[in-house]
């Protein structure tokens, strides 16, 4: 069985700016990998390379055993059909109802009888708690509902590997916990491999088998959540404890420039 995702020596650049520097990453089957890191550290860029939306400046990406840069058009399409992606903003098609959004890949890529496809869509929607919203249009949904509908679409073909970009960002804790549990359940039931890009520590603790932390385009940490707590790298422990780097010291800034020393409290 092929390794679901194998990234070797990946270099990503936007213009002159190098976003990912010689990155190696292997994700095993049935593994839930969380990719952590501050904003702008290259998390989403990594995700976009993994699904072939961006072309690496150097290095290779093998998704479900297929090298994306060598594969032909048809081979890439087939491998993408076997993977699911939950985009950060949902990326639902606004002109279709929720059920039509979820049913679209089924209609295009399978020859299931229409009634079974319809049942399957409804089942997926019940799974994400949107059974009642099947005939609504995406603009009529709240942000959290839109995200859940997008998750239902991402799993509509029971993908072998599921990529999630910030699945629980902007959701209330209960809905976020529901999505976390769903991701675990799906992994268990369908032997799915899951790559989650996030910065919600709560959801990382709930779902991650393994955590990779990116910083400045490199892997800063690779291990379990428990290992994160004992990491020798200070930035990792800071991230976990939500400690902001020390604010600018008091002897700089306007107060210092204006001579704070001479000011005395008025009686």
């Amino acid at each position, binding site marked *: *069985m*092929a390794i679901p995702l194998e990234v070797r020596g990946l270099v990503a650049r936007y213009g002159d700016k190098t976003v990912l520097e010689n990155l190696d990453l292997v994700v095993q089957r049935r593994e839930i990998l969380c990719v952590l890191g501050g904003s702008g550290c290259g998390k989403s860029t990594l995700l976009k390379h993994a699904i072939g939306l961006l072309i690496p400046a150097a290095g290779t990406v093998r998704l*479900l*055993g297929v090298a994306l840069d060598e594969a032909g058009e048809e081979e890439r399409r*087939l491998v993408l*059909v*076997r993977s699911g992606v939950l985009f950060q903003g949902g990326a639902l098609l*606004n*002109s279709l109802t929720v*059920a039509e959004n979820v049913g679209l890949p*089924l209609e295009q*890529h*399978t*020859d*299931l*009888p229409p*009634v*079974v*496809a319809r*049942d*399957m869509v*409804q*089942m*997926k*929607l*019940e*799974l994400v708690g949107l*059974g*009642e*919203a*099947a*005939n*609504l249009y995406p*603009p009529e949904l709240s942000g959290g509902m839109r995200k859940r509908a997008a998750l239902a679409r991402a*799993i509509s*073909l*029971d993908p*072998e590997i599921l990529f999630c970009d910030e699945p629980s960002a902007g959701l209330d804790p209960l809905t976020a916990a529901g999505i976390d549990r769903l991701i675990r*359940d*799906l992994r*268990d*039931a*369908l*032997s799915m491999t899951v790559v989650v890009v996030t910065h919600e520590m709560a959801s990382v603790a709930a779902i991650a088998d393994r955590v990779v932390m990116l910083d400045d385009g490199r892997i800063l940490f690779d291990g379990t959540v428990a290992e994160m707590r004992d990491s020798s790298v200070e930035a990792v422990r800071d991230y976990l404890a939500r400690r902001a780097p020390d604010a600018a010291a008091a002897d700089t800034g306007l107060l210092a420039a204006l001579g704070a020393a001479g000011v005395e409290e008025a009686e």
Partner: protein
Amino acid sequence: MASDAAGSNIVLDWREEPGAAEELVVSGRLDRHSAREVHRTLVERLRRGAAAGIAVDLSGVKRIDASGVALFADVLRRARSRGVSLRLSSLSAAAREAFEVFRWDPAQQPPERIGEPYLVQRGESVLGGLAAARDLLVLCADTFVWAVTAPFQKRPYRKGAALEQSVLLGSNAAGIVALISFIVGLTMALLSATQLRTFGANIYVADMLALAMTRELAPLLTAILVAGRSGSAVAAEVATMKVTEEVDALKTLGLEPVRFLVVPKFYAITLTQPLLTVISALFGIAGGLVIGTLMLNLSPEAFVQQAARALVLKDLLSGLLKSVVFGWIILVVGAFNGFRVTGGAEGVGRVTTSAVVQAIFGVIVADAIFSLIFWYG
């Protein structure tokens, strides 16, 4: 490894014992490649009648996905409607897990969208139209009031905005307005020359072009071009800001959106629309001059003199007055459609289109009204 290129990988076997339920033994992979086959087999057996009931043995299923579970929903509905009992006699661990994750009662149906009755729809569209008309009036009033009072406010909003907008709405359109007017001038001169030549009245090409361009064609051509170019841009800009909550942000910052967004454009279009119209008229007449000189044996001096003689001040002024009004129509219609946007990015495209269509319609209607007024006045 399942691949969409691979066929189904499943074995189906009927086991029948007299008196007992017929049993379908499914083994292998029950996924979206084989679900169709299993579904068909079960539906056919139901159709033939299975009085003793049907049992399905999934103990040999190694892999199962959502379609493998979902197919039983439809089969169950059909079995129930025929009064046949359907049950799963045995499940593999994988199958049990899948059925536990994908819980769903097939009797449940999502609520349908129910459309309003016809009369209610009509009534609502009339009310919607009235509300839109009111909003349009309010926007016009706001724009004019702010435009007049803004210079006297203590704190003018962003000083360079009107100038910046003049470049965007006006200067940048000059090239295309000049080119199109020149081409229309050429065409008009050629068309009329064929007629006038038979009377030996070539020189009147100059009169005709000068009058037609200044009174009618220059304001109209310019307005149509600006509606397509700048009216759409205004609508798209305002609509995008509305969709991304920037308009709401302005309100919370204590800034009046109409004053902040529309008034600078109002100044800009009031200034640039007459200028563009002048450019249009000049280039249109120049187009006629080229044809007159090259093909109608007129001297350039004679053409210019004749054109100048034909024009009276009233024609020039009425053309300019029209152009200003057309500019206002384009702007207000653009902004109105922008503020009216609903939905997301899709809505932006929709209001942009309707802004252009409505602006051109408004300009042509206004032009007709002006023609009537100038006829009597």
